C-alpha cells in the first residue's frame, strides 16, 4: 500500500505545500511534484479538490487527500518509519493544539499584516507578536518543538523560519526580533540547517518579487478569512 505512486500538486511559494514536501522528504517517500498556477487553476486541481480548490493536493494510489494538516496525518499513518508525531496521546494532543493555534493566530495575522495598511496593519502586527510570544513560551529550552529532533510541529510551523522573515523584511514590521524571541531565533537556525529543509525552500529573491506583486490581490482574501 505504502509503495503505491504518490503525486503532489503544489504551488512553488506556498508554505502549505512545503510542509507536505518536508514531511514526505523527511520520511524518504518518493513522489511526483506537479506545479499548478493558483492564479490560473488547472481543471485537474478543480476536479481533485472541488470543495476548497486549493493546493496542496496529494494523490496516493488514486486516493485524493487535501488540506495540509490532514495530509500530514495521512503521511504519518501510511509511512510509519521516522514518526513525526509523539507516541504519547497527550503529547500528540499538544502538538495538534499548537499547530492549529499557529495557523489561526499567527499565520493569518502575519498575512493580514503583510497585505494591509494603517490601523488594520497595526492591529495585525500586534496580534502576530502576541502569538509569537506564546510560541516562544512553548519552545523555551528545546532545540525543536519535537524535542531533540524535527517533528510534526516543526514541520507545521516551519514557515516561521523562512516565510515570516521575508514578510518581515519586505514590510519593515520587526516581528522576529532576536532579543524578544531568542528561542524562536535559535529554532529557526536549527530548522533551516536540516539538510532536507535547506534543500526544499523557494528562492528568496523570487519570493520577494512574488509577494510584492501579489500583496494587493492577497489583501482582501487575508482579511476575509479572519472571523469577527
Amino acid at each position, binding site marked *: 500500500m505504502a509503495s503505491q505512486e504518490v503525486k503532489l500538486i503544489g504551488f512553488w511559494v506556498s508554505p502549505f505545500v512545503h510542509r507536505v514536501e518536508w514531511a514526505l522528504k523527511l520520511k524518504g517517500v518518493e513522489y511526483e511534484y506537479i506545479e499548478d498556477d493558483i492564479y490560473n487553476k488547472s481543471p485537474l486541481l478543480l476536479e481533485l479538490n472541488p470543495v476548497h480548490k486549493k493546493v496542496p493536493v496529494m494523490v496516493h494510489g488514486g486516493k485524493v*487527500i487535501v488540506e495540509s*494538516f490532514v495530509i500530514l496525518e*495521512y503521511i504519518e*499513518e501510511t509511512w510509519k518509519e521516522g514518526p513525526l508525531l509523539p507516541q504519547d496521546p497527550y503529547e500528540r494532543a499538544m502538538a495538534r*493544539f499548537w499547530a492549529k493555534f499557529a495557523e489561526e493566530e499567527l499565520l493569518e495575522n502575519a498575512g493580514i499584516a503583510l497585505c494591509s495598511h494603517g490601523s488594520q496593519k497595526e492591529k495585525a502586527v500586534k496580534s502576530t507578536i502576541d502569538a509569537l510570544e506564546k510560541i516562544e513560551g512553548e519552545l523555551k529550552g528545546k532545540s525543536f518543538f519535537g524535542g531533540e529532533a524535527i517533528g510534526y510541529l516543526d514541520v507545521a510551523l516551519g514557515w516561521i523560519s523562512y516565510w515570516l522573515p521575508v514578510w518581515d523584511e519586505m514590510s519593515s514590521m520587526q516581528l522576529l526580533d532576536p532579543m524578544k524571541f531568542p528561542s524562536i531565533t535559535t529554532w529557526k537556525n536549527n530548522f533551516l540547517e536540516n539538510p532536507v529543509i535547506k534543500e526544499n525552500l523557494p528562492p528568496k529573491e523570487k519570493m520577494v518579487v512574488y509577494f510584492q506583486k501579489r500583496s494587493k490581490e492577497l489583501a482582501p482574501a487575508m482579511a476575509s478569512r479572519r472571523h469577527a
Partner: protein
Amino acid sequence: QKMAKEGLLLLDMWASPFCMRVKIALAEKGVAYEQQEEDLFGGKSELLLTSNPIYQKVPVLLHDGKPVCESTNIVSYINETWPSPPLLPPCAYGKAQARFWADFIDKKVFEAGGKIWMSSGDELEVAKKDFIEILKQVEGALGEKDYFGGESFGFVDILLIGLTSWFDAFEKFGGFKVEDYTPKLSAWIKKCMERESVAKTIVEPEKIYQCVVMLRKMNGIE
C-alpha cells in the same frame, strides 16, 4: 470548585455544542468523568483560565490534572487514549476523509448558523442561503451511508450531531426547515438521536432556543 487531580474533569457549559461533542465521545467509550459547569458570562473559574490560558474557552478536558483544549482535539485525544470502540476507520485514507470533513464542519457550520440568528433583513437571507449551501455539502459527504464513516457511528458524526442541537434555533430565526433542503441529513440526525450517548447528551432544542433569544438580547439584536 472541583480540583480533580486523578481521573477526568470536564469544564463544561450546558448549551455549548462543542462540550456536547466531548460528552458524547466519553459516553461512547464508556469512560466516567466529573463535570464542572462554567458561567461564561458571570465569571470564568480560575481553573478554566489557568487550564486554557490561550483561548479561555470550554470545553477543557483535564486528565489527571493535565488539560486538553479545543473540542475536536479533545475527541481525538479521547479516541487515542481509549481505543475501544474506535471512532475513526482503520485505514489511513478513511481517517483522512474523516479529518477533512471534521475540518470543514469546524470551519463552516456553526459560524454560518450563527450569522442567521445574529442578523436581520437582507443579511439574514444571505446567511440562510450560505448555511443551507454548507449543509448540502455536508449531506453530500454522508451520501447513502448510515453514518459519515460508513456503518458505524464515529468521529464526524460526534462532531456534527452536537451542533445540530442549535439547528432548531437557526430554523426559527431564519424561517426555514433543514428537512426541506437536506432530508438525508435530517434522517441522519434522527438516527443519531436514537443512540443512548447522543440522546442523553443533546440539550432540548427549546432550551437552546431560549439561550439564543438571550444572546440576541445581550448583543442588542432585534
